[in-house]
């Protein structure tokens, strides 16, 4: 059975590597789409993206994605994976040059990382959080099948998702204290790191999502 994977192209870059990673993980029918009508036939939806929250929401709005995306995820329960900025956009709101409304798919806010002054780490916590860091499992999830708690994934971001409900947090990462690096609610998931750039564990997570 070939699933149709729709990777949303809303002008926030670098979708080639996302598509290639999904193909590498066995998704033979993965398309990069800039037409929201493709959501109607999607078996799985990927919302990738890097960059600024405001620009991301503006682009989603300009492309007519917002309502069809909400309908697909909330009403039709099509599995959705937000990656990096795509995860942050699942929230209710972000703060970057004022308050901006998000997609409202998982309740929470997006805030800027701030290094903790009294950190026990001898090494200065620099922002952006850039490089490989651990993801510790908070809850059992299909996304973590065959992945050990504490495995490193590749991060590059300055903002993080603060869920309203602790139950939305599936995995956490120790940086600037601790933040939710994997979130989920029913069929909707978000990962702050880049599975497509995280080699073996990243590909395992993608395969797990494909099996959901």
């Amino acid at each position: 059975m070939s699933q149709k994977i729709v990777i949303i192209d809303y002008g926030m870059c670098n979708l080639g590597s996302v598509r290639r990673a999904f193909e590498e993980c066995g998704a033979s029918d993965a398309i990069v789409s800039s037409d929201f009508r493709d959501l109607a036939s999607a078996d799985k939806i990927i919302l990738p993206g890097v960059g600024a929250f405001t620009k991301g929401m503006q682009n989603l709005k300009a492309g007519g994605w917002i309502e069809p995306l909400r309908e697909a995820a909330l009403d039709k329960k099509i599995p959705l994976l937000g990656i990096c900025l795509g995860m942050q956009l699942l929230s209710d709101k972000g703060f970057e040059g004022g308050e901006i409304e998000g997609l409202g798919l998982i309740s929470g806010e997006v805030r800027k990382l701030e290094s903790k002054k009294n950190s026990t780490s001898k090494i200065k916590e620099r922002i952006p959080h850039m490089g490989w860091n651990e993801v510790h499992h908070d809850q059992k999830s299909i996304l973590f099948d065959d992945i050990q708690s504490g495995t490193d994934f590749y991060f590059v971001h300055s903002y993080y998702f603060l869920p309203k409900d602790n139950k939305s947090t599936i995995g956490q990462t120790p940086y600037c204290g601790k933040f939710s690096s994997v979130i989920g609610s029913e069929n909707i998931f978000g990962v702050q790191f880049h599975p497509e750039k995280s080699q073996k564990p990243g590909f395992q997570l993608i395969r797990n999502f494909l099996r959901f």
Partner: protein
Amino acid sequence: MLKMRVIPTLLWKDLGLVKGIGFDSWRRVGTAMPSIKVYNTREVDELILVDITASAAKREPDYDAISDLAAECFVPLTFGGGVNSIEIIRNILKAGADKVAINSAAFERPELITEASDKFGAQCVVASIDVRKNSNGTYEAYRLSGTQPTGKEVVGWAKKLEELGAGEILLTSIERDGTMEGYDLDLIRAVTQAVQIPVIASGGVGNYEHMYQAIHAAGASAVAAASIFHFTEQTPLEAKKYLAEKGISVRNTSVRS
């Protein structure tokens, strides 16, 4: 804990990979594709690919080649060389690179850093600084592959680049480049103490202890290396084992106890 990164640098001239000494005497060291495949299977933390003649030759990057290379690269890939407009950055990212390194263009038009950062996010904007030590002991930034002095003192320039919106600094000592005598620790320390963003140490590494020093003594978040991987038996994996034994946190499933 965030892991310290070991990053092979691939310098690209015409169609082949090269490595020089002091930004000169380039030796051919193979073609890019097999190197990327090898580094990919060896699970390096990131790769930096720099087209060293693009800016001087005033030509645009070869997007098709970047796209072919990025297709085989499942770790974060930074591309530098000839990056001097938003349009070029867009095309490089579209071709599959994750970050761009901006060097010469930042002197001509510093706002490019801000525009790129606003548009694509600070995380994909690497400000690259090539440095020479002047006879009076001050550090000066050079442009066009180290051929032209800019009059900019390095620490001030690094702070300026951070302020403009760079997400990371790639700091290369031209004198140390290719010598394998060790990174310029004073230079690295001066910059890491002045900025909040991560700094990648580059230029001069000859052994794993040099990497340890750059991280432990000089505060680098990552160490870039070329010659030692091209011309010696030393490997990124062994480098990380060494660092781990010295108590530096690195990504490496095979060395985690």
